[in-house]
């Protein structure tokens, strides 16, 4: 019996396995964009906006910097046993002029990464329980998709 796919956190990304997007908000007054979502008061000091639209962020960007975890992070991270090192990317979204961090898709090591390369958003399993597979956003080099 296959497990149900569920987001590891509600409302942060679309559950589209093919072309997922991170979900942010845009202030209706000043058009500023927020990720994670800002829904109460606009954080632009020049704006008093309180109304926001939900928006999808760009699903590709340029690799700003990267690193990895050679050791398992502490809880509340749910680490596999044995732990497999994984890379982490900070990706610059051009339209939003914003850098967003995320894990790099499994199997892509830091040796395969280079600043400036195009990265795209994917969904992968973060952890599982008996019934569910909890998904999270990750970055993958666009060139690795083929």
């Amino acid at each position, binding site marked *: 019996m296959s497990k149900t796919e569920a987001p590891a956190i509600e409302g942060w990304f679309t559950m589209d396995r093919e072309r997922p997007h991170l979900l942010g908000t845009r202030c209706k007054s000043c058009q*500023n964009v927020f990720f994670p979502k800002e829904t109460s008061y606009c954080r632009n000091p020049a704006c008093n906006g309180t109304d926001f639209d939900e928006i999808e962020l760009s699903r590709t960007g340029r690799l*700003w*910097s990267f690193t990895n975890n050679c050791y398992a*992070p502490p*809880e509340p*991270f749910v680490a596999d046993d044995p732990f497999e090192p994984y890379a*982490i990317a900070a990706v610059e979204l051009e339209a939003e002029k914003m850098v967003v*961090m995320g894990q790099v898709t499994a199997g892509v090591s830091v040796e395969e990464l280079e600043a400036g390369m195009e990265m795209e958003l994917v969904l992968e399993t973060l952890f599982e329980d008996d019934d569910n597979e909890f998904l*999270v956003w990750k970055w993958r080099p666009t060139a690795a998709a083929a």
Partner: protein
Amino acid sequence: MAHEVAILGVGMHPWGKWGRNFVEYGVKAAQDALADAGVDWRDVQFVAGADTIRNGYPGHVAGATFAQALGWQGAQVASSYGACASGSQAIATARAQILAGLCDVALVVGADTTPKGFFAPSGGGDRSRDPDWLRFRLVGATNPVYFGLWARRRMELFGATEEDFARVKVKNSRHAVHNPNARFPKSFTLDEVLASPMVSDPLRLLQICATSDGGAALILTSMEYARKHTADPVTIPAVSNVTPKYPNQLIEMPNFATDSGAGLSVPDVPFRPSIAKYAYEQAGVGPEDMDLAEVYDLSSALELDWYEILGLCKEGEAEKLVRDGDTSVGGRIPVNTSGGLGAFGEAIPAQAIAQVCELTWQMRGEAGGRQVDGAKLGITANYGLFGHGSSVIVKK
């Protein structure tokens, strides 16, 4: 200068992994600072405590905890928490009280007992509204992950190498050998640093600061009070506790993303440089006037960022500074003469205070084998997650 207060006494409890109650470390540091100042505890009018959050009910509410342990004597009290900037917030609070004429003698004290391993969010349970919990949960973004991102960025932008980062560690370890309060008073070679296990590429174990137990304290007084004790006191002419300006375009702990800069003009001075800028302006000095600096080397690579942030060199030139030995004791502008966090480890509420202790010993010529000849002006730099700047200028 109009905004000076005197540092009449300094004291520290050695950093280590002692496993005792943090209050003991704070009391020891405070007693040393009192003895150093020649001030009786009962004459202290104000206690500014820097809080630990790792030991329950924020440092058992720090200022009062230390006041009780030293013996209740009715002093006014305040407590600060600003992550790694907690200590400089406590200094700022005490200084403001003195400058406002509300008291003449204040004790500033911070101490911590830390758990083993990585810092993780304190407290359990599902905290899906707390970014500090979520960054571990969703990305596994430990503190060294952020240090690694910043370090890799230096390599991409300026051609920094792993050897450059290792050189910082080697330099600081040579300073630490001469510091009795350092947790790791051991000199490392470049090969030893580069052979230590990779933690968050490109940073290795010996390039990332540990978590430590420790305590530090200052006796701050009005200039008038200080002159009754000493003709030429060391002083604090500036304290900076700035927050970022929107949009902050650098990814910082514990955030998942930077602010969006789309359609906005970015601040003239980004957050980190603004920490130093505010301190320099307040003291009416500039980076060219500095004799030494104590900076927040969470990683050896981050120390290089600070050279540029503090204006000790131009952007992209920090690697050359460490290669040329300019930031070693005996060089043009020694940095982290204490050994830095690399030799101490983080004892969060104490470390901004400890940086001021080091500069004070240097200004008095009491720094032994790590002494910078003729040190008269120095700056500390530090910052706490969630947007807490921290810098103190110390002057002879």
